[in-house]
């Protein structure tokens, strides 16, 4: 009886009509979550001394660059920082201050058949002068080495995968909701993550704020950008009746423009934030994790829970799910579809900004940051079900854990291959994804 409501995909309990009381009821858990988030942010903010010291180098295996290997910096026997070499085999690790350090290459993270040429060549003693970035050279070559502690590595990779999956989920949810409400496959979404990371870098390093208020400013910039891009580009295209394929190609063009604008503005080298980029890892049994990663995971869980609750409990959230399910039916029941789409773009972009900052904390700010994980975003969204927010979360977690743990058997630089294999398998076996509805998708 009563009005036709779209079938609630992820709801529990009856859909109430009482606007304000339902809104307030939904708002209280949201408020407490927000408070918790703020507490986490503040509590996690021991301001690290900002310095320009660091160590950098290139991993070179007879001319072949080695990506995805872990470099650990120690001082007086204690771990100070870790980083991974990027696609060009380069690493650049900021250090808390000048002094003597030991830079160690984790041999287990090297590709098969590659190891250091000389005995003990995986460790380098360096002296970092004030304000200087010292080089560290590792001479690699062919060789065998014994792999140690696969079970320990598996646990460590699982935890890293969990964190990675949560960060991917931030981007994937926006992508999924945008697709669900407008039908647009937004190929520029990766660039929103990059943009967020760069905006936070700007506020953090160029303007000089601490990373936390810098991130909040970046969030505002992102929300404004999401609003503008919908009002200025996608809205007019929708009103014109531009087809979805044309809009898809436009989003590809947009991603090109954004990505190379980023390259133009920040150049090709990777940058780090002024705080939290280097931290001494904490150890929990076989798992070693820097405190910032714990904060990232905690914050991600909070934010994602908040978004999920908002989708279920608040009226706007229900309207969003309704529009994602069936826009014309939602419009006919009085929901302002354009407003919902606008909100989805704002929230989706803001989430992507946050995800970008989290990603850049472990992978450094670079113009390719978002593009490199675009495949993973799509894999996560498709796996979970294009159009559902909870599906995006589940799919992203699976993809994150799978890609990290696949490095147990395949070289680290090929971890994206695993995601592609998952993507193809899911499309063959269950194209609507884990949580998608079994509808004809072709």
């Amino acid at each position: 009886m009563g009005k036709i409501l779209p079938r609630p995909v992820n709801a529990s309990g009856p859909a109430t009509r009482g606007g304000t009381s339902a809104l307030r009821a939904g708002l209280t858990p949201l408020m407490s979550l927000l408070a918790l988030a703020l507490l986490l942010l503040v509590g996690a903010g021991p301001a690290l001394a900002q310095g320009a010291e660091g160590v950098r180098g290139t991993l070179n295996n007879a001319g072949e660059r080695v990506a995805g290997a872990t470099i650990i910096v120690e001082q007086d026997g204690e771990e100070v920082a870790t980083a991974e070499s990027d696609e060009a085999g380069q690493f650049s690790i900021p250090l808390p201050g000048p002094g003597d350090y030991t830079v160690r290459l984790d041999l287990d993270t090297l590709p098969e058949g590659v190891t250091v040429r000389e005995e003990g060549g995986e460790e380098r003693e360096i002296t970092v002068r004030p304000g200087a970035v010292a080089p560290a050279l590792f001479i690699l070559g062919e060789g065998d080495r014994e792999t140690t502690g696969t079970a320990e590595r598996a646990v460590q990779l699982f935890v890293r995968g969990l964190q990675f999956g949560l960060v991917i989920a931030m981007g994937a949810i926006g992508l999924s909701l945008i697709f669900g409400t407008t039908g647009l496959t937004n190929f520029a979404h990766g660039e929103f993550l990059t943009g967020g990371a760069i905006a936070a870098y700007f506020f953090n390093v160029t303007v000089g704020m601490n990373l936390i208020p810098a991130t909040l400013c970046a969030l505002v910039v992102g929300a404004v950008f999401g609003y503008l891009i919908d009002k200025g580009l996608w809205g007019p295209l929708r009103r014109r009746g531009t087809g979805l394929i044309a809009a898809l190609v436009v989003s590809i063009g947009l991603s090109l423009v954004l990505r190379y604008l980023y390259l133009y503005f920040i150049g090709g080298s990777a940058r780090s934030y002024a705080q939290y980029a280097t931290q001494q890892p904490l150890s929990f049994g076989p798992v070693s994790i820097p405190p910032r990663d714990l904060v990232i995971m905690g914050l991600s869980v909070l934010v994602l829970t908040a978004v999920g609750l908002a989708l279920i409990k608040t009226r706007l959230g229900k309207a969003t799910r309704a529009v994602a399910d069936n826009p014309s039916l939602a419009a006919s029941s009085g929901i302002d579809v354009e407003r919902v789409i606008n909100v989805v773009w704002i929230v989706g972009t803001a989430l992507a900004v946050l995800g970008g900052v989290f990603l850049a904390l472990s992978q450094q700010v670079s113009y390719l940051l978002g593009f490199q994980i675009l495949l993973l975003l799509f894999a996560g969204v498709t796996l979970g079900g294009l159009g559902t927010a909870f599906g995006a979360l589940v799919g992203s977690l699976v993809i994150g854990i799978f890609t990290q743990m696949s490095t147990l058997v395949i070289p680290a630089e090929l971890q994206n291959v695993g995601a592609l294999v998952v993507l193809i398998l899911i499309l063959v076996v269950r194209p609507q994804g884990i949580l998608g509805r079994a509808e004809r998708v072709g």
Partner: protein
Amino acid sequence: MDFGVILTNSLTALLNAEALYLALAALGLNIHFGYTGLLNFGQVGFLTVAAYGLGVGVTYLDLPFFAAILLGLGLAVLLALLLGIPTLRLRADYLAIVTIASSEVLRLVARSAALRDVTGGSAGITGFADGFYSLNPLPAGRYGIGPVDYNESRMWLLLVGWSLVVLGSILVFMLMRSPWGRVLKAIREDEDAVRSLGKNVVGYKMQSLILGGLFGALAGFVFALANSSIQPDNYSTLLTFFAFTAMILGGAGRILGPVIGAIIFSSFFTFLENLLVQAVRAEYIPTSILDSNQVGIVRFILVGVLLMALMIFRPQGIFGDKKELALDAR
């Protein structure tokens, strides 16, 4: 500001290797997107497997030149099958996602250290082009008209390549006027209608994917032979988008559209880059705005803007027919 140099370079680029391999790639994309409505954003993947088939075949497997060419073509067919089987019965977006992802993964696999013995890793492969250039009948010297000239090796490559373009265009013309081509165009317009008439839609789409992929393979051969080397980082998604933009610019769904589009695309951007480099050198543009390293970036930004503008305002490009563009198909 040496306008002579700018003009010469732009005219040289009109029919040079870049226009050539973009024309071949765009021909393939035209079959995919222009005639069948397939969203293949991984065309560069076909270039990659073909080029590596040629390179690996000659250097690692010690095959003669034509056998390696066959290997490259075979790999392109295999790639089309691998991409098509999971995605061709699904929506267009899924093919787009899978093709972009797979072309990136192919590049990563080609440059990976694990396969360095076979593919050369990030350094790539050289020393495979002799089999081709040894067939060159032209005597040494410069060939060309007016300010535009090429050496005998490049001239040989251009002769072979543009002949392939002409032959390919004739082939596409004949195919698209045949019943087979009509079914493809019908699939582009309304797949369900074609399915309800009893046609095997997935089979036709797969054939189209394979045919377009073979053109992409030819483009890969030309690209590899023009540089006499295969560098994995040159086979990035940017190439796909250049070919795509060239196709849309010339007019998708038309025979000569992609070819003309590729020629205009290549020479225009060569002109622009030369202009900017000269302007920066002559200090008409201050280095605070643009320095000589960033001139290449301008090309990429402009391609993105051009692609967006074309799709929004003139999706049929220069020669296209708006009625032929079923961009609402899903």
